[in-house]
């Protein structure tokens, strides 16, 4: 297939490059999108899809290259340009006003007015036109958004983008919070918009969505376009290979098998809090990585909180053969159960303190010595050095500020801080959220190594490739209940997804 020269298509992205803090996230990216077609922009997390989307919606300016739109050439777009050119964007995170009505959300910032007053009649009519005629969604325009379900909110977000755009619509992972029927309705709407001569850029990494919708595919990896073509040119396997690239090895790496006689480290019997978690039972062996999958809000983090006593509930927990009754974070730590939560990582980096202090923070009672309990700096340094080595923390020097470390290394330092206490069971909640591909791979290596050394891991992750790469078994939670336990061989993305979103195997 020979793509149009970028000047001729509705949208032509020509050699666009962008770096953040010296790290290139987009390099020499070129592609086109034309009216009446759906372009699938696919790539892994961190491939640069979101940066590209932000450039096209005018939120950030590229460092190099140009954007051609409807015969004009722009070095950068502003949000006002995007607005004027009729480019609508649906961001992954909803940008709605919960306190306002659906109609107001669709129309802001330009509310129709008559004689200086808001023209409610027109607002209502236009909202109905978009919601019902274009999207086929039965949502009342005057309902406050706070009363809508997530799927309905997503529809409102889409309605808002359609209302503002006239030529190009960019959808960034729009199905992440949709149920299966809602997803089908969205696909209908997208196809209908294509037939209305919209150009559509659809960002995703769900394979089945790619082949259900695509007219053309462009693949991004590590900030570069690494392939493209029609779905027929690019069967799924070829696409996967392009997408994953050097990380293909990761997918095929099998974690060290759990010994048959590995002792049970954690046994959970009918754990629940009556609200978010119901009758969760499982057991976890030494050296095993057990994945806990589910939509957010399914109760995954709540299970972790119940286990360490941050949340109160009923159920029996047995830790290394002994009942764990009086559950509290402090007791959990003493008994060798640590939780490294998402918040903990974000909140626990002392950015303007030395790497040494960050690494030793959980070890202070051990490092402190003498009758007065004073810190022994040399012992602290030794411990920190040891930890940096064990947990692969690259640092410019132990006395450097934590701030000098890359995000991935900060993350490893904090996970390492807790692993140093040689826990029996370690619960990791979203361990690689927001880190780049390299740091993610490093973190995976760390987890595998520690598991091989006998630590039992409960891994909570929304990142399915991560789950499939690491876990020996995967439990799927749906509305606080375990609806499936999949072995490594059974744990395929579509099966986990179906279980997580419907509670059943489809």
């Amino acid at each position, binding site marked *: 297939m020979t793509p149009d020269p970028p000047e001729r298509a509705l949208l032509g992205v020509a050699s666009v490059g962008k770096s953040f803090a010296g790290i290139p996230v987009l390099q020499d990216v070129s592609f086109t999108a034309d009216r009446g077609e759906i372009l699938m922009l696919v790539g892994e*997390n961190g491939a640069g899809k979101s940066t590209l989307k932000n450039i096209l919606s005018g*939120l950030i300016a590229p460092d190099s290259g140009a954007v051609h739109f409807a015969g004009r050439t722009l070095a950068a777009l502003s*949000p*006002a340009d995007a*607005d004027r050119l009729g480019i609508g964007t649906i*961001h992954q*995170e*909803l*940008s*709605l*006003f*919960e*306190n*306002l*009505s659906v*109609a*107001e959300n669709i129309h*802001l*910032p*330009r*509310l129709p*007015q008559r004689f*200086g*007053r*808001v023209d*409610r009649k027109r607002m*209502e009519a236009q909202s109905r036109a978009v919601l019902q005629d274009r999207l086929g969604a039965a949502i*009342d*325009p*005057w*309902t*406050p958004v*706070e*009363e809508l*379900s*997530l799927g309905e909110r997503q529809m409102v977000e889409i309605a*808002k983008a359609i209302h503002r755009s006239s030529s190009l619509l960019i959808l960034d*992972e729009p199905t*992440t*919070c949709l149920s299966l029927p809602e997803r089908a309705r969205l696909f209908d709407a997208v196809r209908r918009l294509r037939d209305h001569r919209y150009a559509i850029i659809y960002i995703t*990494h*769900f394979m089945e969505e790619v082949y259900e919708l695509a007219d053309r595919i462009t693949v991004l990896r590590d900030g570069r376009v690494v392939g493209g073509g029609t779905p027929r040119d690019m069967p799924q396997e070829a696409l996967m290979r392009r997408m994953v690239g050097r990380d293909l090895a990761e997918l095929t790496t099998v974690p060290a098998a759990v010994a048959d006689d590995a002792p049970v480290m954690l046994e959970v019997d009918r754990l629940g809090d009556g609200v978010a978690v119901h009758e969760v039972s499982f057991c976890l062996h030494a050296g095993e990585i057990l994945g806990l*999958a*589910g*939509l*957010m*809000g*399914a109760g995954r983090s709540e299970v972790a909180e119940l286990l360490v006593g941050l949340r109160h509930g009923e159920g029996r927990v047995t830790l290394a053969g002994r009942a764990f009754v009086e559950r509290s974070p402090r007791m959990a730590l003493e008994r060798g159960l640590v939780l490294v939560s998402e918040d903990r990582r974000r909140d626990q980096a002392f950015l303007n303190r030395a790497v040494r202090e960050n690494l030793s923070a959980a070890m202070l009672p051990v490092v402190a010595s003498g009758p007065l309990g004073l810190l022994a700096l040399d012992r602290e340094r030794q411990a920190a050095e040891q930890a940096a080595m064990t947990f692969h923390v690259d640092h410019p020097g132990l006395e450097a500020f934590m701030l000098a470390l890359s995000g991935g290394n900060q993350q490893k330092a904090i996970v390492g801080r807790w692993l140093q206490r040689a826990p029996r069971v370690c619960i990791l909640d979203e361990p690689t959220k927001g880190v780049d591909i390299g740091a993610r791979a490093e973190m995976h290596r760390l987890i595998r190594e520690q598991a091989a050394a006998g630590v039992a891991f409960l891994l909570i992750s*929304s*990142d*399915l*490739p991560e789950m499939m790469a690491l876990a020996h078994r995967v439990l799927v939670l749906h509305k606080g209940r375990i609806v499936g336990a999949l072995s490594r061989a059974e744990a395929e*993305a579509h099966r*986990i*997804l179906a279980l*997580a*979103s419907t509670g059943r195997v489809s």
Partner: protein
Amino acid sequence: MSGRWRPLTRVGAQVWSLVAVLALVSVGFASLSDRFADLDNLRNVLLQAAPTMIGAVGMTLVIAARGIDLSIGAIANLALALALLGAGTRSEAALATDTTWLVYPIAIASGLALGTLNAVATNVLRLSALITTLGTLTLYRGLGLHITAAGLIAVRGPILAFGRAQLWGIGVPVFAAVLMAVAGWVFLSETPTGRRLLAVGGSPRSAVETGLRTERLLVVAYAASGLCGAIAGLILVGRVGVVNPDLGYGMEFTVITAVVLGGTSLFGGRASMFGTVLASLLLTTIDNGMTLIGADPYAYDVVRGVILLIAVSADAASAHMRSRRSPVIPELRA
């Protein structure tokens, strides 16, 4: 949910409970003091409530946009000091400073300018409004005291006209307060700018992504608050005939209490102008009644503090209820 437009400035349960409390308090004071239900006293309550109410109208806009203006009382003080500086003459022999009609435009322009400065400072410094207006509170008050040499200045002439004028036996400031409240209500619920202000208060992040000009909208809110501060100052000076160093002292406390008690959420995005009016009236009634029954003056502060805590707790509780109702955004990346 029925298909009807529902205003955000809604008359909800909060308003009815305020009406009930106001009635209860009034009956209580009337039984404790025979002077409370006196027609003169009721007129007086309305007049006393006017500056609080006007200040609270401006503050409602600021809080609806998820801001706060601690400097409103200091603006009342400095705007009046500037008005005297620009339109007051002090003859050697006379005891009082003579004023011209120019005090009104000067005070109003000063209020608008000082409020705008608050918004600009918050926008430029990117600090929380709590901190910036705490700074300007001290700054404005200091400047005001510097101009008036921290002394009592007796005034006469047109500056007194507004605060003392009456219409059908009721003080003109009362009408002004009602007018301001109606204007504020129309602004918030009927105009596009008002809706946008509520949007910014509801979700500042969404506001940016939607292309709302957040900074300009904040200027509108804070300028309105400054304007209301200056008008409240004019009323207070008109009533006592003196510009004193204490002018506007503690006004922010009463006004913020009134706004939150009235049902406007400190978390932004929800405002009740009618509630603001009722709560201002309630707070004034309590002040007035306690004076009449001869309560210890220090008890006022205790009562006001307790009321503020109750109002803030109710606000936080209802915000918590809302956040529990609203679903968490799920995500599952494959």
